[in-house]
């Protein structure tokens, strides 16, 4: 048997946008597929769903008019946290696993650009997290319904902004994962997340007339650097507005989304730059 079917020359589609997108999709598909077999991922998903259900029982203890609010607040706090935790855990090993298991050696010599591979990995993980967010949101909606609450547009907006925050953390994870090994990249990503969530506090402290951030010059510098280098994740947190019953103006929603996506773009571009010339040994 002729091994290579030389009778008909194979057509390889490599140049152009469509083949590039097809390659990115192929990598994303495989990333999704791999994550879809991750026990940790499903464990976390299961535990969170249990917690959401449990919040119903817990809300029985609350006053009648507080029941819905308790479930709402709980979901709004826990769902993004779980997704971000997943992003940190899976993001930290996103590239490392491929290098460590040497699967990358078979893939990157193919006619795929490193940037395409990286974008595929990012897309795959982003889609997975979207799925996770959607699954948790669906449970949450069910629980709210049981408590007699409704799933309002404001809640959808809150979840959408959460997803922007999740993407931001994922892109940071991608960057650190392109740069370093899993533990360090996990720690750095967590650092960005935790500092990002409190930069507004640091900002406030620097504005204040008293306190270390206001009085100690070194701390002022540190504060400035942190505020400049780390995205302000409180932008995506509209839980307070929701509670106060204040509608979020579309302009704010747009602003927050653009702010988040700019950071995502920044981290993705940095990752591409780092990964492009890195020795894969």
């Amino acid at each position: 048997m002729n091994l290579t079917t030389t009778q008909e020359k194979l057509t390889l589609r490599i140049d152009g946008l469509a083949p590039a997108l097809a390659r990115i999709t192929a990598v994303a598909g495989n990333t999704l597929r791999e994550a879809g077999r991750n026990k940790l991922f499903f464990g976390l998903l299961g535990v969170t769903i249990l917690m959401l259900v449990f919040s119903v029982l817990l809300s029985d203890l609350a006053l009648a008019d507080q029941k819905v609010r308790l479930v709402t607040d709980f979901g709004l706090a826990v769902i993004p946290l779980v997704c971000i935790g997943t992003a940190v855990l899976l993001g930290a090993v996103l590239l490392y696993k491929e290098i460590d298991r040497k699967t990358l050696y078979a893939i990157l010599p193919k006619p795929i650009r490193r940037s395409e591979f990286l974008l595929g990995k990012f897309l795959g993980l982003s889609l997975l997290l979207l799925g996770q967010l959607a699954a948790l949101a669906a449970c949450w909606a069910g629980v709210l319904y049981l408590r007699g609450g409704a799933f309002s547009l404001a809640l959808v907006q809150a979840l959408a902004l959460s997803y922007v925050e999740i993407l931001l953390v994922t892109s940071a994870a991608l960057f650190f994962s392109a740069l370093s090994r899993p533990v360090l990249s996990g720690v750095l990503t967590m650092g960005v997340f935790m500092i990002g969530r409190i930069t507004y506090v640091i900002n406030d402290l620097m504005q204040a007339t008293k306190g270390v951030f206001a009085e100690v010059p070194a701390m002022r510098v540190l504060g400035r650097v942190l505020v400049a280098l780390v995205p302000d994740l409180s932008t995506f947190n509209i839980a307070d507005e929701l509670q106060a019953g204040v509608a979020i103006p579309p302009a704010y929603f747009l602003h927050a989304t653009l702010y988040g996506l700019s950071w995502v773009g920044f981290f993705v571009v940095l990752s591409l730059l780092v990964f492009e010339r890195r020795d894969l040994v």
Partner: protein
Amino acid sequence: MAEQNDDILVLDKLGKTFRVGFWGKKVQAVRDVSLTLKRGESLGYLGPNGSGKTTSIKCILSLIQPTSGEIRLFGADPSDAAARARVGYLPEAPYFYDYLKPTEVLDYVGKLYGLDAATRKKRIPMLLDRLGLGHAMDRELRGFSKGMLQRVGIAQSLLSDPDLLIYDEPLSGLDPIGRKEVRELMAELRSEGKSLFFSSHVLTDIETLCDAVCILDRGAVVAQGRLADLLRMDKLESEALIELPADNADAAKALLTGLPGVEVREQVGAVLRLRLPTDVVPGLTAAVVEARATLRELSQRRESLEELFVQKAVHMSSDGQRATTPGGPA
């Protein structure tokens, strides 16, 4: 991709230095390797463990960046995806996503090459079948043996019908039957006009598979050329087994070893084993008669590649670095 000539792979003074440890200590893995592979040729890339074969191959596929020198793959830089599209690569001890089945691995790879679904559907089972994986086509790779993974690796390297095959240790991890099969397969690919570039320790395997060899040691080329030329050089050597006369041993020995190019390989009692250039043989026979010695055996040597390899590459493990003998662990 401009290809002015038939040089499909050119390494020009390729060098790679790794930096290891906290202080960035330098490890020179590859030094000044230059070679050319022409279309349709088959080149064996040889060397003992740690001599830099895999490192060079990773540079050729743009997995790592050379620190010096240049690589032209089909006339382009290896970072050019279109150049790599014409290469089928088998990594050393290949490993694939273990949650996929062989068909799925190949499907993924096929997508990266931009092969349409119909072509993938047709070629994938054909290739897997050809590589003796027909029975395991629908099993997850988890639990595949080394040899089976090697076969998956070869199958995926052939999926795009590449012009050049770069195989890093294609025969390692295979049982004797597997080795024979893969060797036959490579011979077949070669006869189909594919160019081959493969590394190996298994010299006897390479001897029948390649036109030219490049032998590396500690990152540097120690011998290079067409196999026929390298071996012809050694063909011109003869070996003689001579018994010295008991009464005149020392004088006889002096006479024999005084001939140009004669080398004593061994002496057991009165029996000498000499190595000499073949054109000195007439002089030797005359000297044997003159010294009243007995010529027990005279043979033309055609050194096997194995010996060439040992001779060239293992320039004495005096520094104690080389514990393994090349060709030993296959």
